[in-house]
C-alpha cells in the first residue's frame, strides 16, 4: 500500500535496488512494473523505453536534468531519501516539476516518515511510500499538518501575499 493523491491505495510497482556487486550494466531487470535506478535506465534505455510502463528513481546525489530529454517516457519517477535528514530530494523534486516539466507521478521512497510528508507534497510529490515499519494511516495525517503556508512552491504557485488580501496595521491606518 502507498499514499497517492491523498489516499491509501494498492500498488504493484517494484523498486529495483542494485546490490554492491551489481553493476548498472549487468543488472537483471524484472518484468512488469519496475522502477529502475537512474544508472540502469541510462545503460538500458533502448530496451526499457519499449516497455509499456517503466519507472525510474533518482538517488539524492543525482541530477534530475539528466532525464530532461526522456521526461515523457516514465509512468512514475521516484526520489530516494537515504535518510530522512537528507534534504536534497526536495530540491530534486522542485527541479523536476518546475524546470524539467515533469507532470507525472512523483514518488518519495526510502526513509519517508510522517513528519516530512507535508513538505514533500509542497515541492511536488504526489505519492509516498512510508517506511514499512510505520502505520500508513498515521502517515496520511502528515499531509494535513498545516492549513496555511507562506511561500510559493509547486503545489501553491502563489505566495500567501499574492493569494489573499492581508491586513496591514489597522491602528496606523486609523491614525
Amino acid at each position: 500500500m502507498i499514499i497517492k493523491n491523498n489516499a491509501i491505495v494498492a500498488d504493484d510497482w517494484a523498486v529495483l535496488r542494485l546490490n554492491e556487486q551489481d553493476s548498472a550494466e549487468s543488472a537483471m531487470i524484472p518484468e512488469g512494473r519496475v522502477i529502475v535506478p537512474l544508472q540502469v535506465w541510462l545503460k538500458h534505455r533502448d530496451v526499457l523505453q519499449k516497455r509499456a510502463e517503466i519507472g525510474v528513481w533518482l538517488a539524492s546525489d543525482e541530477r534530475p536534468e539528466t532525464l530532461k530529454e526522456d521526461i515523457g517516457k516514465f509512468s512514475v519517477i521516484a526520489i530516494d531519501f537515504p535518510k530522512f535528514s537528507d534534504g536534497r530530494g526536495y530540491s530534486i523534486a522542485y527541479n523536476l516539476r518546475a524546470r524539467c516539466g515533469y507532470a507525472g507521478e512523483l514518488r518519495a521512497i526510502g526513509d519517508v516518515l510522517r513528519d516530512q510528508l507535508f513538505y514533500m507534497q509542497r515541492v511536488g510529490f504526489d505519492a509516498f511510500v512510508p517506511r514499512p515499519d510505520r502505520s500508513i494511516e498515521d502517515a496520511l495525517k502528515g499531509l494535513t499538518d498545516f492549513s496555511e503556508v507562506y511561500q510559493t512552491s509547486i503545489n501553491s504557485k502563489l505566495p500567501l501575499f499574492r493569494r489573499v488580501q492581508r491586513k496591514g496595521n489597522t491602528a496606523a491606518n486609523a491614525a
Partner: protein
Amino acid sequence: MYRYDEYDQQIVNDRVKQYRDQVRRRLSGELAEEEFRPLRLQNGLYMQIHAYMLRIAVPYGLISSKQMRMFAHIARKYDRGYGHFTTRQNIQFNWLKLEDTPDILADLASVEMHAIQTSGNCVRNITSDEYAGVARDEVVDPRPYAEILRQWSTFHPEFAYLPRKFKIAVSGGKEDRAAIYAHDIGLSVTKNAQGEVGFRVLVGGGLGRTPIIGCEICEFVPWQHILTYVESILRVYNQYGRRDNIYKARIKILVKALGIDEFRQQVEADWADIKNGPGTLTAEEVTRVASFFTDPAYETLDDHDSKLNEFKADNRPFSNWMLRNVKPHRVPGYAIVVLSLKKPGSAPGDATAEQMDAVADLAERYSFGEVRITHQQNLVLADVRQKDLIRLWQEASAYGLTAPNIGLLTDIISCPGADFCTLANARSIPLAKLIAERFEDLDFQHDIGEITLNMSGCVNACGQHHIGNIGVTGVEKKDHGEWYQVSIGGAEGNDSSIGKIIGPSFTFNQVPEVIDRLLQVYLRERTEAERFIDTVRRIGHAPFKEHVYASDFAVAEEEAAGKHEVAPAQYALPYYSPRF
C-alpha cells in the same frame, strides 16, 4: 511592531498542534529518539545536561511588554525563575520537562510567539540591528524586510533539511550592528544612486570551527528580488553543500570550495529562472508589513535638558550610565537606553522573572511598550524621552539592570557553556563571572574603554569568540581537561575580522590573569584615544603574546576550585541521555 493576522496565527496554532502530537508519539515510544530529535530541534528543543532546553524565537530581537511578561510567566511556571538571552536575540529556558513543552508553545502562541526553526538544519531566526528604526545612521529600516524574510523562511518546504543550520542577518545602518559578516547570508539593506532600495548580499560568513568573514555575492539586489535571490542561494547550497562531514557542512565551506565567482554563477543560473516569478515581492506587501513599523507618537522635544545635566554632574553612577548605556536617538529629545544583563556576579544574558516583569513595566511606561534583545545579550528600550532618563535609571537600578558597562570589558558575551550544554568543553558562565569580578573596578574599565570580550564553551562559537577583540574558547584536549584558548584581534561591524590565537591554551583560573596581561600591553602601547582593537592592529600580536607567556602564573588552584559550582540536577528526566 508586527502583529499577527489570522494567517500568521493559524500557522503557529497548527504548529502547536503538530508538535503536541509529536511529543505524544515520543512519550508513547512510537517515535524513536533518533527520529524525534530533528523534529524537536526544528522547534528549538535541546536535550541538555540537566534537562530539556527550549529556545524561543524573538524575530529580529523585537518584543512587546506583553510578550516579555509571558517569558516571566514561563520562567516561573515551567523553569527555575530565569531565562537566558542569546547572541541570536532569542531566549532560552534551561530547566524544562518534555511533557510541559507543548503547553509552553501554546502559551507562546497566545502572545504571537513560537519556537519554530530556532534550531535544526534549517533557516534560523532572522536577526537584525537592535537600533533599527531609531539609529541616526540608518539608511533603510531593516525590520519590514526581516519580517518578510521570517515569513518566507517559516516552514519553507524545500529548505527544512539543509546540510547544516543557516543563519541570516539584516542590517540597515551605515554601521553594521547585526554582525552580517559572520552569517551564512548577511544582508545590508541600502539605497542605490537612484534612491532605490535594495540589498548588498554577503554569503558564506560564519564562526564555528572554521571562522570565515562573508564575501559579497551581489552588490545590489533590488528589494523586489530579495526573496528569490535568497531562495537560489539556498537551493544551490541544499544540493551541493557537504553532507558527509558535519564540520564541513556550512555554506561557507561550499563557497570556499567553489570560489565566490563560481558560486555566484550557479546562484545566478538558478535565479534567472525564478526572477520575476510569483515569489517576487510586491510593493503592496512591503507597504503592508512596513505599516507595523511606523514611528510611535513621538512628542516634539528638545535635545537639551538642564535637569539632566545637573543630575549628571552631581551623580557619578548616573553619569557613567549615561556615558555607556544611553545612545543617541534620531528624534530630538529621545534616547536609546541599553539595560545591562552583565551585572558583575550574574551570568551574562541571564534575566530573572522579576527582572523580565520589571523590564516589561519600564517599557510600557517609558518606551511605547517595546523591548529589543541585542546580540550582545542586553536589552534595549529604544524610545525613551530624555527627561525620563533619571526616573528610568532609578527604577531600573532597583532591579540590577543599570551596570554602566555597555561596550566595556565586563559586557561579556557568553554562551551557557558546560554548566548546561552537552557540547561545551568549558564553563563559560563561571569564567565570565570570575573575569567580571576581577575587573569590576569601573574606573579601570572606563580607562580601558571600548573592548569586546566574547566567550564560547566550544568550537561551535555560540559566544562568537572569533569576533571578540579578546576571544576565549574552551578546547578539547587529549587529557579531557578543561583548557582555554585565547585569541585577540577579532571584531564585528564594518571592519569585521577574525581573531588569532595567541598561543598554547590556559587553565580556567589562569584566564583572568591572561586578560590582565593583554590589557597591560595595551595600556603600555596605546596612543591617545586608541581602542584595544586599534592597538592590536597597529602593533600586531607579538608584543601581546610575548608578555602573556613571559612569566609563570601564580594562581591558587585549590582556593579557586569549587568556587563557582552550579547546582546539580535535581530531578531525573525521561529519555535522558548524557552527552549524546
